[in-house]
């Protein structure tokens, strides 16, 4: 009975995310699920866009995390390789640490996913001025806050407790990064109402919401048809 319920739920989620995918995820932001479902009714399998396929269920969620870590690792690798003007020794040291953490996260997911891992994604950082401290730190803040909200929002979609624990091990490190980056921008802004709700709890984001934001930095076409979301 439980299994049946779970299978149905998965089908339902797959249906929803498939609908989103067919519209191309970059364009659906703001659209209601109901209207998407209607549009999807007129689509068949042949309309699926090509792209790097994330898989389904937990595999899809791990690939989703892997994609975000790829983005962060690529960003900090560039930040450290082409440092902005007047960077301090402490900033270099912190940003290098963060780069290594993100590479560790990225390569961990790649190894853990094995044959199920998506390919390396091509990133688009054309909107970032790597010579500018403001631009780099603002982007770092956006990525870290996004990462925290992404892991928090995807947690309950993970079925395997071991994967959930791993996501938990990573998300608090992302939150430590987020707090540090925010403090570098303006000391004392490690938390704020922009990321917290009225109970001082972090605002989480669904995979759909996250990809609508992160998509601007990913050049490679991706196929998140099987990715659970809500």
């Amino acid at each position, binding site marked *: 009975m*439980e299994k049946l*319920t779970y299978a149905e*739920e998965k089908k*339902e989620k797959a249906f929803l995310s498939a609908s989103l995918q067919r519209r191309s995820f970059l364009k659906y932001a703001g659209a209601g*699920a*109901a209207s998407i*479902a209607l549009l999807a009714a007129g689509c068949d399998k042949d309309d699926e866009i090509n792209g790097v396929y994330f898989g389904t269920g937990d595999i899809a969620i791990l690939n989703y995390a892997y994609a975000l870590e790829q983005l962060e690792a690529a960003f900090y*690798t560039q930040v*450290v390789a082409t440092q902005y003007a007047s960077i301090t020794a402490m900033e270099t040291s*912190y940003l290098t*640490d963060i*780069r*290594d*953490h993100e*590479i*560790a*996260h990225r*390569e*961990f997911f790649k*190894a*853990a996913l094995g044959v199920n891992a998506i390919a390396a994604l091509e990133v688009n950082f054309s909107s970032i001025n790597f010579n500018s401290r403001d631009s780099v730190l603002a982007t770092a803040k956006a990525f870290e806050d996004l990462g*925290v909200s992404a*892991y*928090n*929002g995807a*947690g*309950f979609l*993970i*079925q395997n*407790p*071991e994967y*959930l*624990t*791993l996501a*938990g*091990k*990573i*998300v*608090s*490190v*992302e*939150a*430590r990064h*987020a*707090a*540090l980056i925010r*403090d570098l921008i303006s000391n*004392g802004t*490690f*938390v704020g109402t922009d990321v*917290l*709700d*009225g*109970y*001082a*709890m*972090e*605002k*989480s984001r669904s995979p759909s919401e996250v990809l609508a934001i992160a998509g601007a930095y990913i050049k490679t076409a991706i196929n998140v048809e099987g990715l659970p979301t*809500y």
Partner: protein
Amino acid sequence: MNLLNIIKEIETVDPEFNERISPRRAAIKNITSFGSKIAIAALPMAFATLFKKAYGQQSTADVNAVLNFALTLEYLESEFYAAGTNSTRSALFTTQGQSTAAASALLRIAGDENAHVAFLKSVLGTAAIAKPAFDFTAKGTFPTVFTNYDTFLAVAQAFEDTGVRAYKGQAPSLVGNKVVLTAALNLHSVEARHASHLRQMRRGRATSIAASAMKPWITGTNDTGIGTSVDAIYAGENNVSQSGVTITSIMGVGGNISTNAATEAFDEPLTKAAVLAIVTPFLA
């Protein structure tokens, strides 16, 4: 057609049905509807099934146990910061070099912990445990906790790093529970943000060589410079193997990921028993 089938039909036709019938989405933000999970037992089976989809497979008793465990830690932090930021202590700590920025950061954290307590109490309703009496000297381990600013910051950091590990350890027992797991995760990352800032504050104070080298993330095991009294809080944080992947074998930039970075990149969970052993000395 029975009720179950009707609901299934509605779900098939209208995927948003679940969303509307269950207050789960609003519940995460709005405490008044969050409490409705308590009423699950009173619902007909079909509705109970829908609620289980939203709230996961755990029993109310199990969920309440996790929430009360969290509440214990939030009570501890909330009362601790309230005491450390009152006018008397604030004036004293200012004479010991507490900056205006530091004072506001502590007030900010105090406010967050109060909100966390309010949230958990509201969720638990009558099932909420009463606030225990605390001994912030930990039976004499930190005798100057409210008279020495650096001791106060040390204990604050210890609490935050413990909180991060405590929430993390409870996540697997809430698998699939959209409302409660998501709430726990949303509390968890805020504790991590606090921990990050407190570690920077202590680094700035440079009370010891270890403290002056400390980072917002945990390097190895006890990297705090506080002493062996907090070793248990950092036990196991030096793990470099995650799900069979040796992190130090990963190629980074110009060489493998260092042992330090490998331990920093993953925060480790603590069991409830380990957390309670850490917290018990702080209970009066």
